[in-house]
């Protein structure tokens, strides 16, 4: 009895040890087939968010294709800034990578000194985004986006959007929506998408400026419009803003970066591996079912061009919103 108890305690302690230490201490890689050991995948947010969930979706596909685990750990703080500020101090041996989010890495360094600059981040891949979308409850009087716009024109400021935080993708989308639809709405920031959806379901607000994923995850919600080039395959009946005459294609993009010291050949290899996961039809299907939209902007010109054009438009929106001077 005593030994079993002790061994259980030890197992628990071992578990705790993994939780605390993650994969910070790893021996140097020998000359062998890469990857020959698990890869540490740091999420600069807490567990349970969409950055975590999408990384978890990648996990089994990576293991299946390359035989090694992606070990996810968390380094939250400062809206991701704490993680990104330390990225380049980590070991660049190809066994450490970090989740990266937009618009965060573009806006944060422009707003204040957060310990990193956008250019400090070595991107490997932008693999998906959650498109912005206007969400209402299924019993909402707004049947279409035109209903909402009409109501907003007649009652300036009285259409209230809940959204996740300030200076975030939903906030910028609301600013752009107001401008393009020629209306004035009120934006109320909440802590995270879950809280903003709770406010919607509790009828505190008229609509949520949130993401396509919300309609995939919550019953009793409807989408009025999505900020995509084409309609989302999971929601073929929901129009895009473009169809309705408003040029809004935006959302929260997620990608993967490595420490700057990671050698170019290793960057290439890791990029190819992430690409292989992203191109797996089963993975794409899972992502689409969850309401995500898969994109492929790989290390090099593709990712660079995407980031610079995104940065230009998001910086302009943020200036309009008064978030940047």
């Amino acid at each position, binding site marked *: 009895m005593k030994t079993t*108890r002790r061994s*259980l*305690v030890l*197992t*628990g302690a071992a*578990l*705790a040890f*993994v*939780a*605390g*230490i993650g994969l910070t201490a790893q021996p140097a890689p020998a000359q062998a087939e890469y990857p020959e050991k698990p890869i540490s995948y740091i999420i600069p947010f*807490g*567990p*349970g*968010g969409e950055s975590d*969930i999408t990384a*978890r979706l990648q*996990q*089994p596909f990576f293991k299946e294709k390359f035989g090694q*685990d992606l070990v*996810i750990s*968390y*380094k*939250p*703080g*400062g*809206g991701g*800034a*704490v993680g990104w*500020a330390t990225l380049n101090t980590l070991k660049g041996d190809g066994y450490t990578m970090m989740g990266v989010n937009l618009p965060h890495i573009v806006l944060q360094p422009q*707003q*204040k000194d*957060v*310990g990193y600059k956008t250019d400090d981040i070595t991107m490997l891949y932008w693999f998906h985004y959650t498109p912005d979308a206007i969400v209402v409850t299924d019993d909402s009087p707004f049947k279409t986006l035109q209903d909402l716009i009409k109501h907003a024109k007649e009652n300036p*400021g*009285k259409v*209230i959007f809940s959204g996740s*935080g*300030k*200076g975030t993708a939903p906030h910028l989308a609301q600013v752009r929506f107001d401008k393009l639809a020629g209306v004035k709405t*009120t934006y*109320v*920031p*909440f802590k995270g998408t*879950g*809280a903003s*959806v*709770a*406010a919607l*379901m*509790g*009828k*505190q607000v008229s609509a949520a400026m949130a993401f396509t994923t919300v309609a*995939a*995850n*919550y*019953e*009793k919600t409807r989408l009025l419009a999505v900020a995509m080039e084409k309609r989302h395959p999971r929601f073929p009946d929901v129009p895009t803003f473009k169809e309705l005459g408003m040029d809004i294609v935006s959302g929260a993009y997620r990608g993967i970066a490595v420490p700057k010291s990671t050698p170019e050949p290793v960057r290439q290899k890791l990029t190819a591996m992430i690409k292989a996961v992203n191109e797996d039809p089963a993975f794409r299907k*899972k992502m689409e079912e*969850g309401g995500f939209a898969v994109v492929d902007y790989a290390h090099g010109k593709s990712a660079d061009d995407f980031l610079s054009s995104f940065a230009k438009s998001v910086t302009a929106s943020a200036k309009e919103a008064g978030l940047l001077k």
Partner: protein
Amino acid sequence: MAGLEHLLAALTPINLAFALFGVVAGTVIGAIPGLTATMSVAVLVPLTFAMPTSSALILMGAIYTGAIYGGAYSAILLNTPGTPSAIATTFDGYPLAKKGDGDYAITIACLASVIGGLVGALALMTLAPPLSQVALAFGSVEYFWLAIFGLSLIAALSEGSLLKGVAGGALGLLLSCIGVAEVAGDVRLTFGLQTLLSGIQIVAALIGLYCIPVLIDLVAQPGHHLQVDSGSRGFRLGEAVRYLWGDKINTIRSAVIGTVVGILPGAGGSIASLVSYSEARRTAKPGQAYGKGEPGGIIASESANNATVGGGFIPTLVLGIPGTPPDAVILGALLVQGVRTGPSLFTNQGEIVYTFIWGLILATILMLPTGLFIGRYAYRTIITLPKALLVPAIAFMTIIGSYAIRNNISDVIIMIVLGGLGWIIGRFGFTASPIVLGLILGPIAESGFVQAWTIGTATDDRFGMFFGRPISIAIIVFTLFTLLSPLVLARLQKIKEQAHAD
């Protein structure tokens, strides 16, 4: 009872093994300050991909409930809450342990946790869909008033000087402003230091403010850490059961408070246990000395915080809105498995939900024997270990624990600085609890206020927003009652005495 046929599904050997392992691992992890329920559930997520959904849920639910209970050990034996939920457990648990009744305190905590956990789980099984509406009825302004109510508890929690309690609470509120603002996203009070950018983490503050002063005193004072009576007295189970039976109103009331607070997505175990503690203290019978080692205080805190486990699953499973941070991780794992939460989960995928709830109930019951055994082991270790080993071991744990919160050295620095500060101001009669209360409630009050103000402005009815909603009015009345009733009672007493004198 709903889904009785699913009890058999929960009773498979593998599910029982998961429940047992989860409770044991959770208890050990929860006992170590810094290793939280959220983290331990997150570590398990990859393991759950390869198992049936209900088994995965049972494992995660068991480790979660174990961790919430485990937080009581360090609260009782070291005056350091292992998890934020156990803050109120320190108030009476540590004084009781100091008196030489640490074993008794742990047994009381175990029984109260099991009962609280069962009440929460039963609410989840029988009343989840209607109760989930509570989560939606609570809007921004209600969270604001709830936080104000929470701050009014400082009055009840202040030993000795109310003024010092209020000053501590104000310091906590100020500390909560450091870093990136909760809803507005602007950076405040960092003085240009990267260390402060991510703010003061509650767990780091807990470890620093509670544990470091204990460590310093251990070194500074001769004699044993805890007083020990001679000989072993077993679990003192009979004694504890009798006490709980005598205090059954407190036990059940605290469990109900815990369940309801658990349903509120913005609140959680720390607020639940503080609210039920202050209720227990307010309704204390003559002869009960709360704050000086009254077992009723442990019952209130532990019954409430374990009830939040079942309560928190209610909005998580019915609405897809996580009730507590570990629920958010479990929800994420469910999404990865392709399980969509929502009202229809209970009707369409009843076998998953009800098997899980039975599993949670089994895990809670298993917590009784395992909790008693591990508790005894922990107690023995703490009282028999010589100080020369105890102090470095705890010091090591504080550093590992505060680093583990976010894998961030800043939290260790903050922990040590706050610890030194806590020891110094402790010399002048300031206690840690009002500071931590301010730190926990500050962001809730702030974001609730900003949101309510914005919505109120948009609807041209700020006054109605803050003072016109039924739940808000109820909380305001309750707050005034809590604040004013001791004053009024004291006044009445005085008038009565004067009448007698005349």
